[in-house]
């Protein structure tokens, strides 16, 4: 029998999502627990783990596909001894699962399909996700999040509320031991786990093997036990989707990308002056920030040095035709990088208003995947927090990221005399595989006059 991998529901209201990345190829062997793909919704990026062992027979949904329906078959695993001929059935299975997943129930119950008031929308999706879940429960542990079965295959006893909460928070219930009747996992267990009150099961498993723990834990996984901490002296905050994504992407980038930093000082007085003049004359509601001006300046510099607006691939250097500038925005529990697309084509007012909207929605975690994915270049600004200079980690697959420090009055030498100027240090981190030192320097050389003589960026 082939094993179908289904599109998981990351939240009860999720109906579809974007399959952003495959981490396996057809033919790869996978073990239960291996991360095989990444799924994105409006809220988060999550990993899909393989539940069964096998070989990836066929990938049915290409990476980057948007609007993949929950419970659609996204790939087929071949079990030991099976060959590609087994795949013939896969298509059929796909159709079947599609029709059984189609929740006609919610359509019937929805009072009025045409009415897309908030309540109706949610009500419909609530109906859908319930039926979706129950069909998954029937799917013999195919649920990639394993919310209905323990890893040892026994049925997982948990209250509906506990399951819902776990799903919302990306917690794997099979790691918990329930405190309810007959070991049922109830709300308080999930709350305790989320608070880091050491899920009982984990604590129990770890305790007798504290010393052996590092050896026992899966390769590449860092366990709490491996820190050898005294009990009661710490608390564990569970990893949410965003944290997992940050951890994985940054580790990969720092490990795999040959980084190097370049820094220069930029004088800001003219830019600040221009900014206040612009804002004084700007229409109601438009307020241009220093950051907005830097976005525009970078976009122009990127277009004037096209070889710096690039990504590395093994097949060749990808030169981007537009400057899609990603801007790191710190939000509760992490950060996200909304993208100003084709920033070189946009004026300051447009950039300012787009940025304002994106940042606000980013803080509410309401960005659509296409709004924070992609980007050909990034800006990270910690100047407002008083950081003088820093070097960011490359946001793959981009070739460069610019780290912006605080603007401050500093002594400078002008015409052989000491003078005071508002100066800011910026650091460009480059991926040496695609941006060499000279190319980076050329980009900075293009950026400097745009910032220091900012009228040029208005052209």
């Amino acid at each position, binding site marked *: 029998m082939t094993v179908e991998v289904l599109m998981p529901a990351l939240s009860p209201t999720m109906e579809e999502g974007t399959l952003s990345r495959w981490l396996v190829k057809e033919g790869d062997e996978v073990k239960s627990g291996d991360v095989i793909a990444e799924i994105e919704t409006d809220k988060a990026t999550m990993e899909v783990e393989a539940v069964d062992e096998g070989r990836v027979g066929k990938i049915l949904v290409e990476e980057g596909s948007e609007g993949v329906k929950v419970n659609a078959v996204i790939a087929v695993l071949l079990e030991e001894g099976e060959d590609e001929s087994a795949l013939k059935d896969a298509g059929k299975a796909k159709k079947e699962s599609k029709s059984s997943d189609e929740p006609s129930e919610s359509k019937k119950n929805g009072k009025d399909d045409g009415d897309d*008031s908030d309540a109706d929308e949610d009500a419909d999706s609530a109906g859908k996700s319930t039926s979706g879940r129950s069909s998954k429960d029937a799917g013999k542990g195919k649920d990639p999040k394993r919310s209905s079965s323990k890893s040892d295959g026994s049925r997982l006893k948990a209250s509906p*509320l506990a399951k*819902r909460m776990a799903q919302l928070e990306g917690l794997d219930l099979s790691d918990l031991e329930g405190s309810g009747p007959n070991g049922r996992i*109830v709300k308080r267990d999930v709350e305790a786990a989320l608070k880091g009150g050491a899920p009982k099961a984990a604590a129990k498993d770890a305790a007798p093997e504290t010393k052996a723990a590092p050896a026992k834990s899966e390769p590449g996984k860092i366990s709490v036990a491996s820190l050898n901490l005294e009990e009661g002296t710490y608390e564990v905050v569970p990893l949410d989707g965003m944290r997992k994504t940050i951890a994985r992407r940054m580790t990969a980038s720092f490990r795999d990308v040959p980084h190097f930093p370049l820094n220069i000082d930029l004088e800001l007085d003219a830019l600040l002056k221009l900014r206040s003049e612009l804002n004084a004359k700007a229409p109601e509601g438009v307020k241009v920030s220093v950051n907005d001006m830097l976005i525009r300046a970078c976009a122009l510099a990127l277009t004037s040095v096209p070889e710096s607006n690039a990504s590395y691939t093994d097949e060749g250097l990808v030169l981007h035709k537009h400057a899609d500038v990603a801007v790191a925005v710190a939000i509760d529990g992490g950060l996200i990088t909304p993208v100003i697309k084709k920033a070189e084509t946009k004026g300051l007012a447009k950039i300012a208003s787009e940025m304002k909207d994106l940042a606000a929605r980013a803080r509410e975690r309401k960005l659509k995947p296409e709004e924070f994915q992609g980007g050909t270049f990034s800006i990270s600004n910690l100047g407002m927090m008083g950081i003088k200079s820093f070097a960011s980690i490359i946001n793959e697959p981009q070739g460069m990221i610019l780290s912006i420090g605080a603007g401050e009055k500093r002594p400078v030498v002008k015409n052989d005399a000491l003078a005071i100027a508002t100066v800011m240090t910026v650091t460009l981190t480059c991926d040496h595989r695609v941006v060499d030192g000279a190319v980076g320097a050329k980009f900075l050389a293009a950026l400097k006059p745009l910032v220091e003589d900012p009228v040029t960026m208005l052209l």
Partner: protein
Amino acid sequence: MADSQFDLIVIGGGPGGYVAAIRASQLGMKTAVVEREHLGGICLNWGCIPTKALLRTSDIYHLFQRAEEFGLKAEKVSFDIEAIVKRSRKVAGRLSGGVGGLLKKNKVTVIDGEAKLEKGSKAPKVVVKGKDGKSATYEAKHVILATGARARTIPAAGLEPDGKTIWTYKEAMVPEAMPASILVIGSGAIGMEFASFYSTLGAKVTVVEMVDRILPAEDEEISQFAKKSFEKQGLKIITKAQVEKLETGKAGAKATIKVDGKSEVIEVEKVILAIGITGNVENLGLEALGVKIERGHVVTDGYGATGVSGLYAIGDVTGAPWLAHKASHEGVICVEKIAGLDVHPMDKSNIPGCTYCHPQIASVGLTEAKAKEAGHEVRVGRFPFVGNGKAIALGEDQGLIKTVFDKKTGELLGAHMIGAEVTELIQGYVVARQLETTEAELMHTIFAHPTLSEMMHESVLDAYGRALHY
């Protein structure tokens, strides 16, 4: 020298105490209950049960008055207050006797007399003064205090019963004659039940309440709904009112009430004090043992432990909510903990509360306001009795079922009901809460037709914009 040795002695034979004793006995403990007055406590003798018997009479009387509406003829309907009271006492007596039988069957020793505690080694010693005035000392490994509570009084404001004109629930339960007018001070469950009873039987009833709404523990919408219903029945309700003075004379009582800064005088035949409950913590020797008492109640942890070795407390003596089922459940938790079973402290938000006035009121969990205060984003469902076939067939089309869900998790945070039989309906939601169902399971539950309970389904559906019949 101790006269006898027990594993557990429970002081007080109310729903807290006798249930704890039975559970202990089931778990193999040698158990005794000390009771000074009546097995079954306030609940069976002067609380839950006899009031329900009285309210049954007033409900039937109310229906008699609506006989024509149902195609019946009932002429010259009248009542005999003496017979009403007699029935209520008989019901109480029957159940109190039943508790004696239950304890015997479970081999629990019943010790008649008033208990006091003295310092002991592992647990305090229990000294019982019998009806004959003789004292005996008992020792046990564990002692549970379940001495209950009584009506709160405020003598300084004249809010003190005299047994004749100013009553507490005890006197109000056994009237010798039907008063023409009554002032009920306090609009909690006890106050509203008596107000409803006397008003239905024809007394002119005024209720005064200190805060801005009656039944202040309930959801605001339910309070408002209740107020309108009562006013339609002819009750007078004065909120934000403080009783400043209460004087008694030959004809009755004169109450000076301050409302909105103005004083108002109300003259009535009888006054019922329903201004709260205070724990029976006196004359037990608790101070000497160092038991912590706050605002008239013994302070305990989630399992009833008082902090004094071997001494526990459960039920009304430990504070709100003052409900029989809370007392019993605390008793079970306390005993199971003592026995070393795997138990959890009670989740107070899963304790249902019922008021048996007309219309009835029942609730569990958080009110909408409390839910928001606690930081929940909520979804609220409502379903009115007018949309329910059974309610209309019963001639009970006035009422409301309100549900409050957490928008994110779908947790049923609270349910609030007013109308016919809601005290029987609420249990459906209590089970749902205990099992931690979300809106999804409730939506997929099949409710029998035609029943009032269908409204519980509709209220849930309404919270998600999917109500079918309204």
